[in-house]
C-alpha cells in the first residue's frame, strides 16, 4: 500500500494539482461525450417520431 492515510492520497506527494487536474478533466471529457451522445439521441428520436406521426396522419386523412 502506497498511502499512509486518505489525506496523503489526496495530497499526491505535493503534485495534487497536476495529478487530480489530469484525472478530473479526463473524467469530465468522457462524461461530457456520453452526455452529448445521449442528448443527440433523445432529440433525434423525438424529431423522427414527430415526422413519422405527421406522415401517418396525412396518409390517414387523405381520402382514398
Amino acid at each position, binding site marked *: *500500500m*502506497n*498511502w499512509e492515510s486518505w489525506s496523503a*492520497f489526496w495530497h*499526491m*506527494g*505535493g*503534485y495534487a*494539482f*497536476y*495529478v487530480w*487536474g*489530469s*484525472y478530473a*478533466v*479526463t473524467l469530465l*471529457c*468522457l462524461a461530457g*461525450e*456520453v452526455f452529448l*451522445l445521449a442528448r*443527440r*439521441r433523445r432529440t*433525434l*428520436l423525438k424529431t*423522427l*417520431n414527430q*415526422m*413519422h*406521426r405527421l406522415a401517418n396522419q396525412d396518409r390517414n386523412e387523405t381520402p382514398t
Partner: protein
Amino acid sequence: MMSINWFKYSSPATFYPLAGRLVPLFYTLAVLFSVAGLYVSFFVAPTDATQGEAYRIIFIHVPAAWMSMFIYLVMAFWAGIGLAFNTRLSSMMAQALAPTGAMFTFVALWTGALWGKPTWGTWWVWDARLTSELILLFLYIGYMSLTAAIDDPRRADKAGAILALVGAVNVPIIYFSVQWWNTLHQGASVSLTRAPSMAMTMLTGMLLMALAAWMYAIAAALSRVRLIILEREKHTAWVQQLLDRKP
C-alpha cells in the same frame, strides 16, 4: 466450412441493431477495466524514484495518446474504404470515430501539459512530439468541420476521406518524432523489441487503462454510428418500421 456472411453486417439496417446490443457490453467492459486499472495505478504501482507521484499522470496520458493516433488510423482506414468501394457504412463509421479521437487527443495534450509543468518546468514547448500531436487535433477538427459543412452526405464523405487520408501521414511523424528529432519528450515507454523501461506493476496499470480506453472508444463510436445511421436513413422503410414498433 463455416461461412459467415460478413457483407450482411455492412448494411446499415442490420448493423444498427447489432451495434445497439454491443454498446452496453463495451461500456461495461470499459468500467471494469477502469476500476481495475485505477486500482493498480494508485494503490499497487509504487512511487516513481525520480518523478515522485507526478508520474501517475502516465496512466491516462499514454493510453490517451495511443488512442488519439490509433483512432485516427482506423478513421482514415474506414474513410478510405468508403471512398474506394462506395460503402455507406464505412464512411459513417469514419465520421463516428472523429469526435472520440479528438477527445482523446485533447486529453493527451492536456495531461501532457499538466505533466510537463512539474517535470520539465513548462506547460508547453514547440517541439516535434507536442507540435505534431497538436496538428493531429487540428486534423480531427478539420475533418469534422469539413464533413459538417457539406450538405450532401456522399460528397461530405468523399471530401472528408481525402483529408483523413492525407492527414494520416502525421501519425508516423508523431510516433517516431522522439527518435527523429531532439526533444524534451521521453522515448517510448513500451516497445516490442526491448524490455519495458518501467516496473511491471506500472506497466500493468498502463495496459489496463489502455484496455479501458479501447472499450470506451468502441462503445462511444458504435453509439454515435447508430445516430448517424438513423439520421441518414430516416426515410427508408426499415427506419419507418422501427418507429412504428417504438412510438
